[in-house]
C-alpha cells in the first residue's frame, strides 16, 4: 500500500505542472510540423522530442545528471555543436555560382538589413509591459532574420542563452515557412516583366578558385572581423576539405556521420531549453513577431537591392533572386526559381539564385560577428 502510494507520487500524473503540459504540447506541435508538414524535420524532430523530454516531471532530463543536461552543457553552451554543423554545411556548399557572378554578394549583404532593422523593433517592444529586451537579447533575436540555424543558435548561446529555445524554434520555423512567407513579398515588390527576366549562363569556375575562395574569406574575416572567425572559420574549413580534393574521406565524414550525430544532439539540446519557465511568457511572442519582421524585411531588402542593381547593370538581373540573399539554403533559391517559372516557363533561376543564397550565409555570419564584437 505504502509502495503503491510511493509509486503514485512518482508518476507524471501526480506531479504535472500546467506549464510542463503546455510545453509538451508545444513539443508535439514541433513533431507534427516536422513529420506531417515536413518543416525542417532534421532539426525540428529532435528539438520537439527534446522539448517533450525536458518537461517530463520527476525524470530530471535537464537537471544535473540528466542526459539533456550533459548534451546542452557539452555541446551548446560551449558552442561546439553549431560550429561542427557549420563545418559540415561548409563541406556541402558549392561556391561556384557565387564565384562566377560575385556581384551577387551585394544581395547577400542587402538581405542582412532584416537583422539590423529588427534591433530597432526589439527596443521598441520594450514599451510593452512584461517585455524587457537588453541589446544583447535584441541582437540574438534579430539574427533570426539571417535565416541560418547554426548561426542563430551560436549567437543566442553567447548573448542570450535564456532565450535560446524560443529563438531556435522561431529561426527553424521561419526557415521552413520560406515557401509561404517569401513569394507574396517577392511579387509585391516586382513587376511581371521583372520576374520574367532571364539571366545569362554562368561561366565555368576553375578548381583553384574554389580552393582559394574559402581561404580568402577566412583571411578577410581575420583581418576585419575576428569575432566572426569561429563561424566563418569552421565553415571555410569544411568548404576547403570539400574543394581541395585530397581529404575526401574527412569531407565525406563531415557531411554525413559527424553532422548527423551532431544534429541529433543539437536538436535534443536546443529542445531542452524549451521549458515553461523560459518559453511561456510574453517575450516569446515578441520573439516570434520580431523574427517574422526580420525575415520579411530581409527578403524585401534583397529584392529591392536586386531591382536597383538591375537598373545599373549591363547584364540583366532578375530581382527575384535577391530574396535568396537571406540564405535558408537551398530553399530560398528554390523559391526564387519557382516564382520565376510562374512568370516565365523558360526561366530557370535556380543556379543564379544559389549565388545570393550562399552569399547570405556569409552575410549573416558577418552580421553575427559584428553583433558579437559590438554588443
Amino acid at each position: 500500500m505504502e509502495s503503491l502510494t510511493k509509486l503514485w507520487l512518482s508518476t507524471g500524473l501526480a506531479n504535472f505542472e500546467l506549464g510542463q503540459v503546455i510545453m509538451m504540447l508545444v513539443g508535439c506541435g514541433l513533431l507534427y510540423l516536422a513529420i506531417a508538414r515536413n518543416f525542417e524535420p532534421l532539426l525540428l524532430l529532435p528539438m520537439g522530442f527534446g522539448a517533450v523530454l525536458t518537461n517530463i516531471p520527476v525524470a530530471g532530463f535537464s537537471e544535473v545528471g540528466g542526459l539533456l543536461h550533459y548534451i546542452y552543457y557539452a555541446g551548446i553552451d560551449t558552442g561546439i555543436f553549431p560550429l561542427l554543423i557549420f563545418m559540415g554545411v561548409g563541406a556541402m556548399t558549392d561556391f561556384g555560382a557565387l564565384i562566377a557572378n560575385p556581384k551577387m554578394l551585394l544581395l547577400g549583404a542587402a538581405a542582412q538589413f532584416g537583422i539590423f532593422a529588427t534591433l530597432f523593433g526589439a527596443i521598441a517592444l520594450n514599451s510593452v509591459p512584461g517585455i524587457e529586451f537588453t541589446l544583447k537579447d535584441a541582437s540574438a533575436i534579430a539574427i533570426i532574420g539571417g535565416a541560418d540555424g547554426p548561426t542563430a543558435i551560436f549567437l543566442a548561446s553567447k548573448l542570450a542563452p535564456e532565450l535560446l529555445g524560443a529563438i531556435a524554434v522561431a529561426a527553424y520555423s521561419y526557415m521552413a515557412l520560406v515557401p509561404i512567407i517569401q513569394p507574396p513579398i517577392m511579387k509585391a515588390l516586382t513587376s511581371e516583366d521583372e520576374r520574367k527576366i532571364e539571366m545569362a549562363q554562368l561561366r565555368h569556375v576553375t578548381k583553384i578558385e574554389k580552393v582559394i575562395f574559402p581561404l580568402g574569406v577566412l583571411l578577410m574575416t581575420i583581418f576585419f572581423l575576428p569575432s566572426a572567425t569561429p563561424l566563418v572559420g569552421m565553415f571555410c574549413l569544411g568548404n576547403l576539405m570539400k574543394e581541395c580534393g585530397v581529404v575526401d574521406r574527412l569531407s565525406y565524414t563531415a557531411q554525413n556521420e559527424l553532422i548527423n550525430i551532431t544534429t541529433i544532439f543539437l536538436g535534443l539540446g536546443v529542445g531542452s531549453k524549451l521549458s515553461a519557465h523560459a518559453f511561456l511568457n510574453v517575450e516569446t511572442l515578441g520573439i516570434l513577431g520580431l523574427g517574422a519582421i526580420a525575415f520579411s524585411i530581409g527578403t524585401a531588402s534583397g529584392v529591392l537591392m536586386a531591382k536597383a542593381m538591375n537598373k545599373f547593370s549591363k547584364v540583366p538581373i532578375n530581382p527575384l533572386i535577391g530574396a535568396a540573399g537571406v540564405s535558408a539554403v537551398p530553399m530560398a533559391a528554390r523559391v526564387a526559381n519557382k516564382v520565376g517559372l510562374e512568370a516565365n516557363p523558360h526561366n530557370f533561376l535556380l543556379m543564379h539564385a544559389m549565388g545570393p543564397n550562399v552569399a547570405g550565409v556569409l552575410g549573416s555570419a558577418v552580421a553575427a560577428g559584428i553583433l558579437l564584437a559590438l554588443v
Partner: protein
Amino acid sequence: MNNMEQQFLEAGTLMITGMVVVFAFLSLLILFITTVLAKLADKYPDPVAPTINRSNKKKNKVASGEVSPAIVAAISGAVKRYREQHSQPNSKL
C-alpha cells in the same frame, strides 16, 4: 535622455555600423574574387579533359559518371538492401 531613447540610439548606431561593415566586407570579397581569384584562374586553368578519348569510351562502355537511370535505380535499391542487411535488429547490443 531616458533609457529607451539611449537604447534606440545604440540600436541605430549598430544598424548603420552593421550595414556599412556588411557591405564593405562583402564588397571587398567581390574585389578579391574579381582580382585575385580571376588571376589565379587564368594562371592555373583546369586541366582539359581528354574529350576525344571520352567520347570513344562512351560508345564502348558506361563511364562511371554516366550510369543509366535504370541501373542507378537498381543499385540504389541494392545499396539500401545491403545497408539494411548490415543493420539488422539486434536489441541485445
